[in-house]
């Protein structure tokens, strides 16, 4: 994985000092809250419902055991012994003191980590495929391109006061595991007919109150022009994105209002101009970064055999391990979704354990998934039983990847000052319901996503089943949505009808699941059945 050189380290260290200085001026009253707010947000520090919250960047979701241990130490030393992994592959802490923030950033910098641009109207942490470098279906490892863009976007002098936040995802396979087309810019690294690598740019996707699927604006940008193209896309947005209404300020609204064709024309014009401005790093820089993402030394001749005599272990292997490009290896998913638990939360002890297991069984590497789970990307099949045994003992062995129990949920009204309703209790009750009724296994892949407000941090638009919490005259109310997908078959979910109370939404999810079990044909997932039969049978069952 990538390692800082003296330049990267100097930049992160300078940022720590900058934020210490800004915090000091705030505490001395020399900065007002209005002036300080964008500065602290660009260092990931929010003022949330109960306290300050710090969001730490995990670039493209990749970290090593040393870094995971540090995340655990921060949870213990500065927070309340736990952290929350987010839908953009980051981690956030809920109980941070402003006066500690500088020390936390310094601790992070000591392990090549930071909270730079994890909030604010700037280019956010760049996300990627959590199976990058391991997946059998990738064209190349997408992370070097994400790293190149990370450096370009860090402390960008022109794009730090954008109309609104800006999220970029980079993938390199036709299977989309990063919700690429629901980002402000989604990049897919592709190979053309001449066997050259290039970047397909999708611009103007997003969730939030106006969900949009990003159109492709350029199917092949040569790799030695990718940064310049991104710069052009951002400049058009910075100049022309709406600033009169924060709810219309994302780039998706600009692309929608101009039309993809006109937006593209403007980007191409800016791109042609910027090609003469020396924006692009030399190809040698991309090569340098690629060098950090070489495959680990996979062993040859490993057995693909597995002792499946323990049925609990066999179920976990079937559910939570993914085919790997190297024979004898798999990627193993550590579920942070125990039945009745808080999706994405991990205690400091669990983080320490995951770090140790990564060191022992996965070439010292971990990944954070946008579905709020953790991946050990390179595990020998021969080590799986020992790994599973250790995970089980720590409450991390839930065999539920991509099932109805593997719920994405935003922090909701329990933690978030923007939320209108609680998300976590709904997730807890649904996972308990399906664990009790035994339908989880029969339902197969069913992606359920819950947001506690219209901002859609819980990706409800992209759920096979989505739930949106709203405030109905001071009472929590939940709308049900069906038919969304964040994957390569991307689609936006539709609302079924009137909302439900908390008990009602759990029943409604089971009702929708039962319609699928009744109507499905061979091999269909919930989403496939919904797409075939449409909304009507579900509505009849829910409201009939």
């Amino acid at each position: 994985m990538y390692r800082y050189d003296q330049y990267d380290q100097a930049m992160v260290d300078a940022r720590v000092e900058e934020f210490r200085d800004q915090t000091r001026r705030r505490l001395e009253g020399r900065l007002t809250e209005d002036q300080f707010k964008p500065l602290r947000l660009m260092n990931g520090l929010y003022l949330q419902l109960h306290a300050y919250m710090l969001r730490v960047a995990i670039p493209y979701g990749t970290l090593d055991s040393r870094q995971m241990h540090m995340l655990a130490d921060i949870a213990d030393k500065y927070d309340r012994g736990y952290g929350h992994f987010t839908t953009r592959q980051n981690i956030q802490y809920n109980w941070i003191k402003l006066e500690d923030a500088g020390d936390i950033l310094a601790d992070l910098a000591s392990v090549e980590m930071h909270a730079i641009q994890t909030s604010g109207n700037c280019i956010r942490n760049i996300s990627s495929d959590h199976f990058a470098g391991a997946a059998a279906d990738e064209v190349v490892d997408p992370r070097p391109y994400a790293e190149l863009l990370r450096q370009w976007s860090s402390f960008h002098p022109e794009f730090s006061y954008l109309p609104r936040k800006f999220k970029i995802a980079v993938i390199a396979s036709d299977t989309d595991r990063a919700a690429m087309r629901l980002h402000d810019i989604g990049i897919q690294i592709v190979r053309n007919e001449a066997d050259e690598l290039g970047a397909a740019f999708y611009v103007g996707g997003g969730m939030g109150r106006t969900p949009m699927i990003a159109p492709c604006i350029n199917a092949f940008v040569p790799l030695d022009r990718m940064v310049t193209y991104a710069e052009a896309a951002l400049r058009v947005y910075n100049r022309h994105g709406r600033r009169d209404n924060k709810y219309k300020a994302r780039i998706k609204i600009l692309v929608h209002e101009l039309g993809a064709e006109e937006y593209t024309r403007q980007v191409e014009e800016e791109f042609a101009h910027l090609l003469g401005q020396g924006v692009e790093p030399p190809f040698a820089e991309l090569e340098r970064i690629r060098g950090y993402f070489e495959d680990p030394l996979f062993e040859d001749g490993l057995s693909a055999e597995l002792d499946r005599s323990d049925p609990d272990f066999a179920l976990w292997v079937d559910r939570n391990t993914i085919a790997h490009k190297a024979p004898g290896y798999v990627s193993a998913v550590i579920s942070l979704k125990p039945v009745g638990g808080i999706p994405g939360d991990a205690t400091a002890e669990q983080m320490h354990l995951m770090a140790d297991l990564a060191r022992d069984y996965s070439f010292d590497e971990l990944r954070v998934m946008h579905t709020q789970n953790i991946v050990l990307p390179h595990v020998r099949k021969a080590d799986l039983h020992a790994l599973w045994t250790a995970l089980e003992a720590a409450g991390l062995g839930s065999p539920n990847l991509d099932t109805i129990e593997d719920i994405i949920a935003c922090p909701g009204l329990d933690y978030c000052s923007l939320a209108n309703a609680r998300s976590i209790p709904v997730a807890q009750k649904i996972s308990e319901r399906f664990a009790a009724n035994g339908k989880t296994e029969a339902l197969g892949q069913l992606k359920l996503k819950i947001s506690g407000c219209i901002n859609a941090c819980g990706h409800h638009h992209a759920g096979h089943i989505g739930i949106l919490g709203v405030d109905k005259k001071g009472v929590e109310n939940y709308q049900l949505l069906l038919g969304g997908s964040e994957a390569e078959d991307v689609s936006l979910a539709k609302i079924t009808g009137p909302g439900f109370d908390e008990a009602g939404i759990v029943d409604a999810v089971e009702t929708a699941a039962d319609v699928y079990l009744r109507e499905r044909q061979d091999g269909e997932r919930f989403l496939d059945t919904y797409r075939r039969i449409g909304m009507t049978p579900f509505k009849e069952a829910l409201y009939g």
Partner: protein
Amino acid sequence: MRLLTGNDLRTGAVTWWTGNDWSLHVEDAVDVTGTEDEIARREEAARRVNAPYAIDASLHQGRPRPSHIKDRVRALGPTVRPDLTLKPADPDIGSWVI
């Protein structure tokens, strides 16, 4: 009644105006109807509170209880982690919030 609330600038903790100081406990809060803007301005300028604002509340068993669920969650702590709330040992606190 109206309560004045904000966060402690240094720690971020949720605080409530008691008439002469800030408390972590909403039951210490006093009615500020008509004076909320003036107190908020003065206290924020002195950096004894960050981002203060007033909310609606009513008396519940003689103690102030915020009218909106968001303010009650904010006053207590996350409902999904009773151990981290201000009243970890109170079995009835759930019904106070919801």
